[in-house]
């Protein structure tokens, strides 16, 4: 009986973390699609926006929904600023230049987080501690908030890309930016908007993460691990992040369960093993675009 509880609860936690990883991975992928580079500043966008929510609600008594909305707007602003200041001037240069620049932005944002958080005070968002029992699973309100926020972001982005003209135009830019500008698409604006949307997605994922874990400067580690989900899905895939995220979530939770008694802490590092394996054997990921070639 104990084993059943253990497995059911681990699976539930894997599900929650899987969706959070998926949302974090989506942030990388949206940027990658338009700029063909991994945005290494994203982990710190996550920390920064999580701290904005925490500080506003804990010290200024702003209601959490309002603080969350503000953090989404800030995420958008940071994304747009990164595009304007880094990606646009470096367009047409080797992508390594842009990735190095985003790594620099990571540290700038880290400084900003430190200022906002008054030297990285840690704490939790203080969501109501309500627990529900569903069969053998014990789930908290935070779990549900995390699932709802990350899932609705993912579904929203997928629907936007599939059905709205804006999303379709973004897909066109992602496939062939030069061709898109030849047909008169506003490539520059669409690229900037994509970075902004990636920032919003990161901020939403940050909130989901903050609901689950303590708000601390170490939240960036989750976003770094989510890069494995992103690679697994394929860096230019959108809906694939759900699979990538869930695989990572389940591997990590069950991996920890099985391996931690033998090698403590290994579960936490499994993401990097996934990254390595994907890069070695399936560099385009599971759902990465394989270009159509008519023979």
């Amino acid at each position, binding site marked *: 009986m104990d084993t059943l509880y253990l497995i059911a609860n681990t699976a539930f936690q894997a599900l929650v973390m899987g969706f959070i990883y998926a949302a974090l991975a989506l942030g990388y992928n949206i940027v990658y699609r338009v700029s063909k580079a991994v945005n290494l500043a994203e982990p710190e966008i996550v920390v920064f926006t999580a701290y904005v929510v925490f500080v506003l609600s804990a010290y200024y008594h702003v209601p959490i929904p309002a603080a969350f909305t503000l953090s989404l707007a800030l995420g958008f602003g940071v994304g747009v600023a990164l595009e304007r200041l880094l990606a646009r001037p470096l367009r047409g240069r080797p992508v390594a230049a842009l990735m190095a620049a985003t790594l620099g932005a990571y540290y700038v944002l880290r400084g900003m987080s430190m200022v906002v958080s008054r030297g990285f005070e840690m704490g939790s968002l203080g969501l109501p501690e309500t627990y529900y029992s569903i069969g053998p699973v014990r789930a908290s309100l935070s779990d549900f908030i995390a699932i709802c926020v990350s899932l609705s972001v993912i579904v929203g982005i997928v629907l936007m890309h599939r059905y709205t003209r804006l999303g379709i*135009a973004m*897909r066109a830019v992602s*496939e*062939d930016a030069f061709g*898109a500008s*030849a047909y*008169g698409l506003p490539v520059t604006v669409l690229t900037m908007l994509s970075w902004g949307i990636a920032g919003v997605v990161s901020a939403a994922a940050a909130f989901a993460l903050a609901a689950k874990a303590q708000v601390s400067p170490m939240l960036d580690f989750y976003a770094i691990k989510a890069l494995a989900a992103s690679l697994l899905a394929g860096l230019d895939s959108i809906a694939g992040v759900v699979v990538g995220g869930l695989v990572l979530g389940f591997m990590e939770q069950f991996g920890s369960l099985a391996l931690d008694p033998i090698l403590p802490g290994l579960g936490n590092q499994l993401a990097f093993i996934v990254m390595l394996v994907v890069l070695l054997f399936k560099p385009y990921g599971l759902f990465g675009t394989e270009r*159509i070639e*008519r023979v």
Partner: protein
Amino acid sequence: MASKHLLEVNNIEVVYHPYILVLKGISISVPRNSIVAILGPNGAGKTTLLKAISGLIKLERGKVTKGSIIFDGEHIENMEPENISRRGIVYVVEGRRIFKELTVEENIEAVAFAWRRSSRDADIVYKYFPRLKAKRKVRAGYLSGGEQQMLAIGLALLAKPKLLLLDEPSLGLAPKIVAELYQNIRELYEEEKLTILLAEQNARKALEIADYGYILENGRIVLEGPAEKLREDKDVREFYLGVTGRKGYRSVKWYRRKKRWV
């Protein structure tokens, strides 16, 4: 005052990578509501001429160093490509550049978004290329070559161009498809009151629909005239239309000599 000609290219020289002279003093004029064909073999400079007009040579470090390009009474030589396309010159590049991962419908939606066209406006593509309508939901990468070319031209139509530049639309297509494509181009030219500048190697097809033609060789215009005159011209018939008839060895030698033209 609007001049009779929509586009006037006056004695331009185009240079790539500061040293390579590609066009050596070319002048053409395109009257409103007409089809003008630029003919010539590979490497004659047809594509370069279209890129000079559309401004895209800038992206390849090319430059118009002499002469002028006047569109609708305004100098456009060496202008940014975006500004030129906003003025109404749309360039359908060689090799059917479409969004292969998107469906036909999504290709149209994406470009309609760029020009703020409604779905009703976007139906113009299906009107002239009815073949595409049946393949609305098909990813463009899986279309046949001819259909891809039709889609590329259809997307350009959404911009409501004043001047449409078509680069080698018949490239790599079966003769039957080329015939259908040219039929479509002719129709949309007549009904949409378009002005088209067409670069082609397939001189026979191009001269069927064009009003006027220029023949380009080695970056120079070697011959020009109304399409019907060119169709009748002895040299053109021989070198470009492949109308030769029976010939003895002497006339082949004459061909060799004559082919050098200017």
